[in-house]
């Protein structure tokens, strides 16, 4: 029991924030896409590809920040693909997203073997350094939790606030929500429905790619096979739990991040077999969805918009 209590300390909360970061980023991505009326199941694959791209670019350039940029770019490209398939060619959102997910699994495993000769993991590359926020880190408890992280953790906090402002306090956000809720009305009002949709799905992919880059460059500094491990789907659950609102999604991501951090610490303790502990985040996700979702009403009807 003493050991179990040791697991729960301030370090756990700092780890929870860290593990929440990739989920929160992907979940913001989910919000942008779904607010504009496109379901993005491909978040998982965009994350995985982002994680791979980040490591690959850091490996060849020695600069992890170039890796982060490249991961965002590749995420946006996959977003563009999803947008083309679902908007221009009216494909099924879920089939297209699943195709992107399978592609990501195959592509990253293939390239990993081409570049590093191993399907399991890449070599270690230069990752993102942690920074300490001067005054914040000296505050007791809060400083221990918030004071020292990679810059991407702080960027995620900023992006959450920014997403809220963009979506709910600017004309662009009004347009995005109008396009999702009532595309034909938006069209009549002179909004370029297709442009907004493309933009949102690309932003969605970019955020998921950024989340992937954090997974690989912000923590382990390598790429491992299938390292997104369902976080794209967990991000969708966080989005639903957070009612398609940036702050809500961030809060929900904290919950999932906490379960992830707890899971890792319990594994290190070795009291239970790893497989049992690894199930925790997935079961929690199912439980959360089952518990709250009834009251969650999606912001769009997700039907392909055809101009009459």
């Amino acid at each position: 029991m003493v050991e179990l209590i040791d697991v729960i300390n301030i370090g756990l909360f700092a780890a929870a924030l860290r593990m929440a970061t990739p989920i929160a980023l992907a979940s913001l991505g989910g919000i942008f896409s779904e607010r504009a009326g496109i379901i993005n199941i491909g978040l998982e694959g965009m994350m995985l590809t982002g994680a791979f791209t980040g490591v690959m670019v850091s490996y060849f350039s020695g600069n992890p920040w170039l890796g982060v940029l490249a991961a965002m770019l590749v995420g946006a490209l996959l977003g563009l693909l999803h947008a083309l398939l679902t908007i221009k060619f009216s494909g099924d959102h879920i089939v297209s997203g699943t195709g992107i997910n399978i592609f990501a699994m195959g592509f990253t495993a293939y390239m990993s073997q081409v570049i590093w000769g191993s399907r399991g993991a890449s070599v270690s590359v230069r990752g993102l350094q942690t920074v300490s926020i001067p005054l914040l880190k000296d505050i007791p408890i809060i400083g221990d939790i918030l004071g020292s992280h990679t810059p991407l953790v702080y960027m995620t906090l900023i992006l959450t606030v920014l997403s809220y402002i963009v979506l709910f306090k600017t004309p662009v956000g009004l347009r995005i929500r109008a396009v999702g809720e009532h595309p034909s009305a938006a069209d009549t009002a002179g909004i370029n429905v297709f442009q907004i949709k493309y933009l949102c799905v690309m932003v969605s992919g970019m955020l998921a790619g950024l989340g992937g880059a954090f997974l690989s460059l912000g923590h382990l500094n390598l790429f491992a096979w299938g390292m997104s491990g369902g976080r794209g789907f967990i991000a969708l659950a966080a989005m639903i739990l957070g009612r398609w609102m940036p702050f809500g999604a961030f809060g929900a991501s904290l919950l999932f991040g906490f379960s992830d951090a707890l899971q890792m610490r319990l594994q290190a303790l070795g009291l239970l077999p790893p497989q049992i502990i690894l199930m925790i985040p997935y079961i929690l996700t199912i439980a959360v969805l089952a518990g709250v979702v009834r009251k969650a009403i999606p912001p769009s009807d997700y039907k392909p918009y055809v101009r009459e």
Partner: protein
Amino acid sequence: MIEGIRRVNPEAWHTLREILTKLGLSVRKILPETIAIITAFLIGAIALLITGYPPVEAYSAMISGAFGDVFGIGQTLTQATPIIFTALAFLFAFKSGLFNIGAEGQLLVGAFASALIGISFNNLPVYIHLPLALLAGALAGGFWGFIPAVLKVKLGAHEVITTMMLSYVASNLTSYMVNYPFKAPGWVPQTIVVAPSAELPRILQPTQLSASIIIAVALAWFTDYMLKKTTLGYEVRAVGLNPSAAESSGISVKKGMILALVISGAIAGLGGAGEVLGVHRRFIEGFSPGYGWDGLAVALIGRLHPVGVVFAAILFGALRSGGMVMTRATGVPLDIINMLQALVVILIAAPKLIRYLLKRGGFKW
């Protein structure tokens, strides 16, 4: 291209056309799928070139590996078998309007349950032991489909997320089982071999092809029959086509969805049982290279039709078996298979895309 064949060799064109008509498919009908597959292979060839592998050698090793001799054909059919099951599983749920993307997990729990029955009894007669083990697989898979079904109809949890999450749970759960309580002596995480009375016979020695493929094909026929000719099938389709209309004509949408997902899971579970009892004769961790995802692609290429699924599964079985030969011969990483498969899914996801490509290529369609 097909026009080209007609011009250059009219006789071959007629024979080809006759064969295809006999299969109940006209060339025109499968053109989009054919284009999708060819396009995927072309993109794959470019990927191979960029990464420094010879595409022609790789693809010819793949084709001759998959179809070149009896052994290759046997292995192709062996690989096709679980894919027929997972594709039928996806198809069945899809007919009721549900996306079961967790066939992988249902296959795994089904496989483990059948292994458990297979290793637990030693002196049962074959006619009891084998059906019992198969049934256990179907029940376990069905249960794995029942969970997301109930969560969907009672609580509104989206099945895409829950079936996916349950896939991860299944993979960890079965991994735990064969690493701890049911681990056979030795290094490999696997169970001991099942009793001979639970084995599905091998039907093409020395390949691993087992009687599971007979079950698979029979099931494809039966699924077609069930969907078209039975009340259950009618209800499932009605729920998928128009839930509110179904509800107002007295069909329970909730019941239809639950049944569809349970049957879907049971089909995938039975496929897992077939792998354990017919091919591996035990549960080995990681025995599935992603049959669940194969099934999704195959169901789409097979036009969500049970007969189409069987043919598409053979194609994907060929990718898997030929892929292994290709990897041994040319060193191309096997994951190129998953890329090709994903490209096919992406190209099929949007039927308009193919039509657009055809128009660009100057085809009348």
